[in-house]
């Protein structure tokens, strides 16, 4: 069975600084999709960014970008110019069986 591992239960970043959240996964497939979802406190989960495994170029969405290393099965999320509204739980997910990691709680300090 595929696994998704987020090794950082909690992370903290100063407002306006950059932070990187880690995610590794295990799969024998070559074609798949990876996602980062954000779950703010008491609010609904929303998509942050998506990466297609067959694309070599790393996905970017404004202040959010990923470092996708297919051979290493690594998929990290970089948040630049962190804002107070970025504080949330962040989940890495793999589409083949819709498996989510355990999450990383991000705190943003003013």
């Amino acid at each position, binding site marked *: 069975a595929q696994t998704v591992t987020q090794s950082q239960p909690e992370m903290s970043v100063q407002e306006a600084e950059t932070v990187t959240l880690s995610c590794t996964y295990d799969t024998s497939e070559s074609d798949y999709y990876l996602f980062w979802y954000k779950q703010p406190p008491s609010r609904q989960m929303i998509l942050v960014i998506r990466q297609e495994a067959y694309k070599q170029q790393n996905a970017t969405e404004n202040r959010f970008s990923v470092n996708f290393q297919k051979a290493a099965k690594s998929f990290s999320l970089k948040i630049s110019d962190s804002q107070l509204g970025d504080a949330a739980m962040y989940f890495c997910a793999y589409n083949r069986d*819709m498996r989510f990691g*355990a999450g990383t709680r991000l705190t943003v300090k003013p």
Partner: protein
Amino acid sequence: EAGVVQSPRYKIIEKKQPVAFWCNPISGHNTLYWYRQNLGQGPELLIRYENEEAVDDSQLPKDRFSAERLKGVDSTLKIQPAELGDSAVYLCASSLGFWGVDEQYFGPGTRLTVT
């Protein structure tokens, strides 16, 4: 555009009682997901529907859980009888396409407490 609607938002029941959760996905979305999320953990897929067909229910505890998606639109998830370990948030999500390649839109969830 209305988002994914779930009801009830909160439910408290005694163990061994039945409970049902309802989900109305975004109009036109073909795939519907039910997840269970325990406190401090990531969502765990229970069942995935593509239209009205359940295409992945490998994590659904079939001895006590059941689900249906009538006419490929609304869906109901039922637990009977509930156990203490079923206390969790039950999330419904929907996506436009298949195979989990599209963005999922999540509902607010139903927080179940079994006493």
